[in-house]
């Protein structure tokens, strides 16, 4: 009897579970169908609004009669029309045209007020969404309300705020971000990449402010970040700051300083470039890499010999960067290449051959087959012979197929038909 009771109980429980599952399935099916139907209806209305108002807004923006339509565009927050209008206006705003007119529409129909109120929402997604919208609306008015949000504990809020401030692009916003950088980075509230991507939006007007903060901060991470951002602008204004950091104890700072120098391309005297060249023997590989790149960009001839030494660096990225840098010196680097190709190790040779092929230096070598200077001719030919012996001869065959100069073709054929490799 007791057993029967237990079995009945178990059966009942199982039946109840089955019924519950069936109910949930039915609810899910109903919810799926209902959602599909409601979304379809909503999208139809949205499309209709978008089509109707889009043309109207374009006309007003073109004719400068924005104030006339503000009343017509206004609608209760979160209505379908409100969302349709917002999408249209944000799309226009993303193009960067009619910025002032769009700002007055955003403010006139209440979007800015609405989202500024949402900045105090407790839900982080609502808050982040409002921050993002304000950024896209590009109203300077919101900058002061956004800056305090950089103190938020939630990385998501901080990241969206940084991005929005950069979209608005006001100097106060940039100062706000730069002021908070040490705190944001030390507490991992934002990634370096986010700051780099965002600050680029402020444009070259941000250089003086970046320099100011680059001098102010002592934390290596902040310094490196600011130097990296400055390198993106390729401005000579940042060179003094970069030079003062070439001997910084942190390798990241040294490499970023070199990047600024390499990007600036001019405005440096010899003594300063010598300081940069000294970093070709830095113990850290990525500092040597940046030094090679910078000297190549600056085309600093006195560094050719030092770059030649870097061709046998134990790191292949540094070797390739040095070879690439040397290709920028044209015939002046022939003897360096030849020296390494004749005597040094296989890996160094491969790096040189790769970079010669990958840049237009191979064309320089081909052209040198016509050179009047015998020394240039001989060195170039020897390099080509070594390249052939190392099986880096695809460009030779290509030139034979498509090249026009018969003398060069003749020389290349001789090299290709050589049975004996030159002494390597």
């Amino acid at each position, binding site marked *: 009897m007791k057993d029967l009771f237990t079995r009945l109980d178990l059966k009942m429980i*199982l039946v109840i579970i089955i019924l519950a599952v069936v109910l949930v399935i039915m609810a899910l099916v109903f919810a*799926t169908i209902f959602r599909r139907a409601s979304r379809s209806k909503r999208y139809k209305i949205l499309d209709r609004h978008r089509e109707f108002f889009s043309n109207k807004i374009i006309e007003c923006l073109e004719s400068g009669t924005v104030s006339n339509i503000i009343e017509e565009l206004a609608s209760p927050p979160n209505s379908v029309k409100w969302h349709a209008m917002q999408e249209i206006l944000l799309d226009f705003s993303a193009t960067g045209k009619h910025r002032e007119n769009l700002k007055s529409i955003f403010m006139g129909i209440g979007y800015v007020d609405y989202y500024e109120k949402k900045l105090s929402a407790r839900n982080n997604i609502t808050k982040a969404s409002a921050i993002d919208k304000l950024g896209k609306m590009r109203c300077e008015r919101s900058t002061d309300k956004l800056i305090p949000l950089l103190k938020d504990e939630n990385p998501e809020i901080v990241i969206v705020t940084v991005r929005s401030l950069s979209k608005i692009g006001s100097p106060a916003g940039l100062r706000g971000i730069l002021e908070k950088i040490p705190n944001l980075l030390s507490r991992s509230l934002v990634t370096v990449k986010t700051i780099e991507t965002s600050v680029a939006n402020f444009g070259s007007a941000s250089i003086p402010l970046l320099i100011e903060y680059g001098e102010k901060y002592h934390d290596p991470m902040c310094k490196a970040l600011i130097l990296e951002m400055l390198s993106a602008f390729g401005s000579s204004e940042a060179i003094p700051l970069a030079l003062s950091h070439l001997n910084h104890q942190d390798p990241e700072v040294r490499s970023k300083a070199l990047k600024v120098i390499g990007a600036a391309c001019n405005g440096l005297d010899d003594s300063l470039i010598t300081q940069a060249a000294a970093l070709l023997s830095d113990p850290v590989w990525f500092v040597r890499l940046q030094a090679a790149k910078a000297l190549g960009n600056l085309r600093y001839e006195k560094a050719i010999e030092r770059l030649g030494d870097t061709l046998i660096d134990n790191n292949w990225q540094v070797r390739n960067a040095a070879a690439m840098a040397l290709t920028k010196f044209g015939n002046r680097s022939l003897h360096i290449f030849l020296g390494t190709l004749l005597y040094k190790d296989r890996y160094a040779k491969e790096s040189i051959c790769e970079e010669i092929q990958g840049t237009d230096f191979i064309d320089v070598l081909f052209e040198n087959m016509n050179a009047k200077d015998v020394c240039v001719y001989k060195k170039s030919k020897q390099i080509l012979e070594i390249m052939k012996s190392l099986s880096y001869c695809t460009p030779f065959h290509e030139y034979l197929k498509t090249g026009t100069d018969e003398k060069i073709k003749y020389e290349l054929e001789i090299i290709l038909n050589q049975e004996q490799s030159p002494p390597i």
Partner: protein
Amino acid sequence: MRASAIYIIIAFNYFVGIYYGIVNLLYTILLTISFLAIVRYIKRIKYSPFKDFMSSRETPPVSILIPAYNEEKIIIRTIRSALSVNYPFFEVIVINDGSTDNTLQTLIHAFQLRKKDRAYRKILKTTGVKGFYSNVELPNLLIVDKENAGKPDALNCGINVSRSPYFCTVDADSILENNALIRLMTPVVESTVPVIACGGVVRALNGLALKDETISEIRLPESRLAVFQIVEYLRAFLFGRVGLDAMNGILILSGAFSLFSKASVIEVGGYRARNVAEDMELIIKLHRHQIENKRPYKIKFVSDPICWTEVPETLTMLGRQRRRWHLGLIQSMVQHRTLLFNPRYGKVGLFVMPYYLLVEMLSPVVEVLGYVSVVCSYILGILSFEFLLIFLTLAIFYGIFLSTAGIYLEEITYRRYPKWGHLMRLLAYGVLENFGYRQINSFWRFQAALKYIVGMRKWEHVEKGSPDNRLASSRP
């Protein structure tokens, strides 16, 4: 004798009952977590900065690695789709893994490639490289021709050749959506904890209309088997992986579409050769390495970047694929068994690995043996017909619930199948897959377990797509 058999069967029945109770409870928890996570994620997408990254010079460069073995029929389509992604700096590296058909010639002809001399640095050990091919007018395309040694070796070769800090693996029969790569990279750039691997969603390409190598219309395939797999993929990606991702407990990122930090992969020695599920093995290795070195990290799954890939349309090929997947799961679990229940590995050791062992790996074995046991119980008179029916109904309805939940998640999130007809068909297949399809799947996975026990651990040849338009996708 009969009495002992009855006792054993009763005990096993209890075990099966409790096991399924626990498994279904875990699934329900996972589903709830996924539901909450995905709804939040969908809201977050609205302010995702991926469009900003599309034009930013600070977006990290990526190498798209496409290993190819005998893919002459489809490789061009895949490469064109990869070359057309919206991403600021990327290179496409196709690794021809010693194809015996005309894959290389097809590539040379289609992209007017020329042989290129280039140094090959064996950072990860691989078989020999025969040559490099490129076209100056397509500077971000490189073809590597190498000796045949299998997919893991081809991927390692691609890593050696890659010059970007990140690489994305894509199968040779897959098509990337234009924004898929940038969407996959966004959490990597945005996360304040280093994201060392990130996987996207894989969906069935079968039945889709293509125009100029891009998807022009999303349709459901004619093949019933392919539609079953669509429902299955929705369930697996939208609630399985989303739920595990919420706990940083992802052990499987599909090899068809995943992004990795190159330095992290090189640190663990790259893909392991002779493993039939090299993608899973790599992820476990990454977890293990980061935990052992006490480094903060994330391995993420993101549900909006989509890669469309061919799925098998015949039972034979599907069976081979599923056996291979399960065999790979078992191999990886055995290779990294030290993590199991090991508190040193935190939640990976104490929850994620045991979950994969007890739920993913053992469930087909328990399920198939459970069917046998239920039949035996009925024959021996231990189980009443009424109870048999109740248990069966519960199992089927729970399966329908999971499939319907997957379709519901798709509807509230990405809604890729736009027509009413698509929705109704998916809902119907969500019900139908519990009458045969799910059971046969368990049987294939059970077979894989047997194969592992008897030592048959080779890669089974799988041809995807329909038999009339078959796409070779075999691996030696």
